[in-house]
Each structure stands twice: as structure tokens, then as C-alpha cells.
């Protein structure tokens, strides 16, 4: 069993009468890419802030790399907040060095790490420029650099893709994957399912502060009834294991049906039954549910999220 990078144990956070996080339990194994999924107000940012000791929980226990949340962990953490900003008058290089030093790096290694990152982010020519001279996308990259400069063991990214153009989104995905390959644990919150689908090993789905799902993508999908599309002569509703069907286009006596199986029934079982019993089929396509569909299944269709 791998060590735990972060664990929430019965964590609740209340602001007055409002409960932002409600009895949350989960554990994030070291070295994985972990997604916090949820709509606005789901409690993603509050959870991350508690893990960073910016907020303290009303009740429950949090462990970050085996320790209580505190600024003493800062040296091992890289954090990219959802709301981003930098000191406008400070130069790009000074900004990154400043944050590196706040994370307990010495000035010289901070400088060489900053320069290496700027090369990687194609910003080396801008090292001496003040932030205010940069485009928004460039400033976002500098902010990413401030999170990565200390080669963190734990990278926490709050909505990292918001505000980035597609090119920079792809670049950030690469950086996240690379950090994970280098052994870092990456936790990021998002309301965009595509990124999570491409990157995450494990997911935590949140709905109004409560845990809706915690596990791998496959586990999430397995929780949904299997669906498939088949082309047959007769309505497959009566076949064993079929929950419901929906007839589509017909052609020369063949009709295409969308089929939803009963919970726990695998498409393989239906195919086996058809071949064994001489049910004529022209096509049999298993449909893997998207993460968006699993999210709607667990959290509900009312949450504001993006595919």
C-alpha cells in the first residue's frame, strides 16, 4: 500500500450557518494525479485552503504528507490558486525567486531553478521584464512557475486550466503529467471534465460540500449501468439483463437500438446470450460512459460543470 500524500478524516468546515465542507473523508496515495471535481460552491477551494492551513477545519482531521497542515510543509508544496495575480512592478525572475524563497529555498538554487523553468516555459527572454509588460497568458505561465519552482512533492492546483488558451492548456497538462512521472503527487480541482478524464488516476466528486464519489475512473464508470448500441431485427427489450431500449433508425428490416443494461450486467453477457440463442445481430457497440456522464450520475445534472 503506497504512502498517503493527503488524507481528510471527517472534515467539516462551517462559515457561520453555512457548511462549505461536510464530513469529508478521503485519502490520496502518493504519486497519483488526483482530481477534485465539482461545480461552484462544491467545497473544492475550501478543501484545498484547509490542506494549506489558510483555513482551519471546524472539525475533523487533515494530514498532509503525514503531518498536520502548516506552513512548515510549504517547502514541499507547490500551489496554484484559482484567483491568480502577481506583483505588477516585479520582474518575472524576481517574482519566481521571491516565491521560491518564501518556500524556504536559498537565493542561488532558486535562481537557477527559476531560469530552468522559464526556459521550459519559453519565457527566458522575459526574465527581466516587469510582470505588467506580459500578456495574460504569459503571466499565467509565470504563476505556474512560482508553483513549480521548488520541485514540489505535492502539487496543488485550483482550477489550473481556467483562463488559459488551448495551447497553454495542453502545455500545462504536459507539465502536470511530467511532475507526476517525476514522483510528485498532483491534486487539482476542476469543473472541466475533459482535463480530469485525460489526467486523473483517481477522482473525488463533490456536491455541496459532501463526497459523492471517491475512486478511479474505471470504478466510477462501473457504477453506471452498461450501455450499448446494437442493430437487430427485433426489439431486444425482452432479452435477459436488458433494462430499457430505445429504437433508432430502421433500414431493410434492421433497426438500431440504444440499450441500457441492468446494474451489474456486463455487455459481454448479452453478446454471449445472442450468439448462443441465434439472435441475429448486424452490429454490437459497447459504449463507455464519459466522465461527464458519471459525474451527472453521482452529483446530479444541476451542477454547473463543463464537459
Amino acid at each position, binding site marked *: 500500500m503506497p504512502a498517503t500524500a493527503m488524507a481528510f478524516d471527517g472534515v467539516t468546515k462551517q*462559515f*457561520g450557518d*453555512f457548511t*462549505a465542507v461536510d464530513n469529508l473523508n478521503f485519502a490520496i496515495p502518493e504519486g497519483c494525479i488526483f482530481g477534485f471535481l465539482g461545480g461552484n460552491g462544491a467545497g473544492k*477551494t*475550501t478543501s484545498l*485552503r484547509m490542506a*494549506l492551513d*489558510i*483555513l*482551519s477545519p471546524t472539525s475533523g482531521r487533515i494530514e498532509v504528507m503525514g503531518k498536520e497542515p502548516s*506552513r512548515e510543509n*510549504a517547502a514541499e*508544496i507547490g*500551489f*496554484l*490558486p*484559482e*484567483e*491568480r*495575480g*502577481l*506583483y*505588477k*512592478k*516585479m520582474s518575472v525572475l524576481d517574482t519566481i525567486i*521571491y*516565491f521560491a*524563497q*518564501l*518556500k*524556504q529555498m536559498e537565493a542561488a538554487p532558486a535562481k537557477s531553478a527559476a531560469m530552468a523553468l522559464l526556459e521550459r516555459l519559453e519565457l527566458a527572454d522575459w526574465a527581466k521584464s516587469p510582470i505588467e509588460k506580459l500578456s495574460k497568458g504569459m503571466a499565467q505561465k509565470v*504563476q505556474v512557475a*512560482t508553483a513549480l519552482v521548488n520541485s514540489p512533492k505535492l502539487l496543488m492546483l485550483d482550477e489550473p486550466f481556467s483562463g488559459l488558451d488551448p495551447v497553454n492548456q495542453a502545455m500545462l497538462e504536459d507539465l502536470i503529467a511530467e511532475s507526476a512521472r517525476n514522483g510528485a503527487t498532483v491534486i487539482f480541482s476542476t469543473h472541466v471534465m475533459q482535463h480530469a478524464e485525460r489526467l486523473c488516476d483517481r477522482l473525488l466528486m463533490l456536491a455541496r460540500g459532501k463526497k459523492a464519489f471517491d475512486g478511479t475512473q474505471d470504478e466510477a464508470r462501473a457504477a453506471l449501468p452498461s450501455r450499448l448500441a446494437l442493430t437487430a431485427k427485433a426489439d431486444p427489450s425482452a432479452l435477459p439483463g436488458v433494462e430499457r431500449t430505445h429504437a433508432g433508425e430502421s433500414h431493410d428490416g434492421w433497426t438500431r437500438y440504444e440499450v441500457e443494461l441492468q446494474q451489474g450486467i456486463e455487455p459481454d453477457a448479452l453478446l454471449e446470450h445472442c450468439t448462443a440463442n441465434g439472435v441475429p445481430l448486424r452490429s454490437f457497440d459497447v459504449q463507455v460512459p464519459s466522465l461527464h456522464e458519471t459525474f451527472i450520475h453521482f452529483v446530479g445534472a444541476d451542477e454547473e460543470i463543463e464537459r
Partner: protein
Amino acid sequence: MREILLVAKREMRQVIATKGFWIMLAAVPIALAISGFASNQLAPERTTAYSVVDESGRYAPLLETQMQASFRQATLRELSEYAEKWELQHVDPEAPWANRQAWLNPAEIQRFAEAGGAEAAVALLEPELDEDTPPFEIEDPYYTEVALPDGVAIPAVGEEVGERLRSVLEDDITVDDRRLPYGAILHIPANFGQPGAQARIFTNGRSNASLIRNMREILSASVRQDAFAAQGIAPDTAIALQTMQAPVSVIEPPPGEGRSLVATRSLVPIALVYLLLITAVTTGSMMLQGVVEERSNKLFESVLACIKPDTLMQGKLLGLGAIGLIIVLTWAGTGLVAALYFEGFAAEVLRPSLEALDDPLLILAMIIYFLGGYVVLAMVFLAVGAISESMQDAQSYLTPVIFLIMIPVVIVMQAALKGPDEPVALILSWIPLYTPFAMLARLGSGVATWEIIGTIVLLIAFIWLELKLLGNIFRASLLNDGKPTWKRIFSWMGSKDSAG
């Protein structure tokens, strides 16, 4: 501590990179240079020129003698004050200038003149001066007689004043390469002293009143003397009658005591009050701007992931405190250099002011009040920054805050100078926000030791409380997106954190 220093260093670098900082730093040296230049180059002439057209031939020499005598009297008074202040009476205890009352006695003034006047006294004193004692400077005479410029015609009685006469009086007149204001032209007719004959003084309307009074007194004395003679009174008796003085002696504290000592001792503390106000308000505004920038730029979360809100706040206080100190030291330093350069000021005002602060408790108290006052005000500005969404927002909070600080401070300064026990100053001394101002203003005029210690203890306790409250406001407000209301601000002061 390392993080506090990092934040402080960043704040300092940010301020030092602004033009405003350098302009402010240079403001006092430039102002001093300008005022120094102005006082050297543009100081008005002290001496006023006048002319006498004496058709009788009797009065002009008399007038000149009398003018000289009254100048000598003033010089004797200044010289005797100087001798007492710098303890130089021992050089010649019998000299008129060794006696503070001598200037009231015509015989003494006469003796002073006969002994060679101020020039002889200065020559006598010069070898006795130690290096801290400035030499006595003989001032220029108040009045100097000049010949009537060419082409100026004195109009007959009842006639219009001619253009030339008018323009001569409007202009300055050159005497020995100096441009002097032309104060008056006195015309004495040949038959002056007889009934109906009158002397006339032509002026430009802005004339020196004492010049006219002098002329009138001297002429009146002369006319009176003639009247005495006409009554058969012997000339000697007449002079004795005229110069008869009622026995009046003027009691003055020695220079450097009494009210003048209070003023001298108050100079440094009161200068500190103004410095405190200026630096606290200017660097406070910088601090506020910085906090508002961080807030509106959504910077806080990144910073707070690395350091605690208290550390951030303390770093800011330290960094901008250091900036404030740099400004104060630069200003005070250039002020001191300027004071030493303009020797008179250094010797007569600054050195006695510094020497009057001879009590270590007083000096320590001054430093504590200054630094304490700075921290108290800086935190008020930081708090305003922490609850403001934008600079515009900050301005609307700041206006009442500045009034809250300034108005009582102005009142207390007035009150404290009247006396250390004015009720307003007494009350404000015990309100921590005003303690530094009230106590600095009162220090010079003498405050009980228990009061100094008591107010310092209260001030330090208040700073501690303010730090706690500000820490809470910082923590709660920085991550809060909503517009702060007074109710929320008060709840922040007490709470550990707030809605995210």
C-alpha cells in the same frame, strides 16, 4: 523571522523603485536648499535710507546724532543679552554690556559709545570665546542718511508733490553698492521753531513707522528745548528735564530660561510630532496601496500558502517602517547639516534645543513615542488596506480616518504649548491613538515621570492589541470576496477565519 525579512525586503524594493519615494526623500533637502538660498539672497534689507533737507541748518546734525544713539541703545541691549547668555560678563564686569539693565540708562549708553561701542566690545570679547560660542554679530544700523538725489524738488507748502520726488521714494536707493528702501525725506524750513512753520516728512505711504516717530521725537525735543530757553531756564537744567527718566527697571529671566527654555526644549519633540505625522501618513499610504494591490490582484492566496497572514503583516510593517525611518533619517540628517551650515541657526536654536534634552528618560521616551506612534498609525493604514477592494474604496475609508487622527493632533499641539497640564492634552495623552502626539508635544514643558511610564505601558499594550486585531482582520478579509460591512469587520476582529 526569515519570512518577515523576505516580505520586508520585497516591500522596500517595491517602494524604492517608485519615483514618489525619491521625490519625497529629496523634498526636504531641496526645500532647505531653496530656503537657504532665499534667506541668503533674498533677505530684505534691514536698513532704511532717509534724507534730510534742513534749510535751518540746525536740526540735521542733531537728528543724525539721535538716530545713532537709539541704534546704539538697541545694540547695547543685544550685546548685554549675548554676554549673559554665553557667560562673558567676567571679561569686563564694569563694562556697560555686562549689565542687562544698562540699555535703559542714557548715561550707560553714553559710556558704551565712549568706550568704542559694539566694535570695541567685540574686539575685547573675541579672544575670550570658546569654540562653541558664536561671535557677536553687529547688525546694520536701522537708518542711514543719504543725500537727496539729484533733481528732486521739495514742493512749497500746499503745492503738489512732483513726479520726480514721488518716483524716488517708490524706488530703492543705492548706497555703497547696497539697494536700500528709501523710507522718508524730511524737510525742515528755515523758520522751523517759529509759530506756523512746520516740518514735512515725504514718504511712499509704506514707510517705517518708527522712522517717522524718531524724526518727530527728535524735532519735538529740540522745539521743547527752545521753549525752555525762551522761559529763561538754563540749558543744562533744560537737558536734565528732558532726559529725566522715571525709575523703572525691567525684570527678565536670563536668556535660556523661563518660557524661552520651554520653547527650546519643545523644539525637538514638536519637530518629531510633525515628522511622525508626515512619515506615518505618507508611508502608511504606500502600505495601503500595496495591500490594495495585492488584494485586487488576487495575490494573497499564493502568498498565504507559503507564509502566515501575521508574518505577511509583520513583514509589511517592518519593510515600510524601514522606509519611513530612511526618510526620517535623511530629512533629519540634511536638516542637521543645513543647520550647521547656516551657523547662526545651529548655534542659537538647534544646539540649545539638543542640549536642553539632557534627561536620558526624556530621550528614551521620545524615541518610544515616535516609533510607537509610527506603528500605531501604520497599522491603521494596513487595516484600511485590508478591508478595501480598490483604491477608491480605500479613499472613502481613509478620509474619516485621517480626520480622526489630524484634528485631535492639531488641537493637542495648540494646547500642549500653552502648558503641560491643559485638560485636552492631558486627556489625549491617555488615548493610545493620540498618546505619541500629545506626549511628544508636552514633553518639552515638563511631564511627570509616572505619566511617561504609564502612557508608554498603555501604548505598548494597545500596540499588542492592535496587532492581534489587525492579524484577525488580515486573515479574515484577505480571502474574502464580499464587500466588508462594519458588522463583518467587527466579527473579523474576533473570529479566526471567514468565508472563502
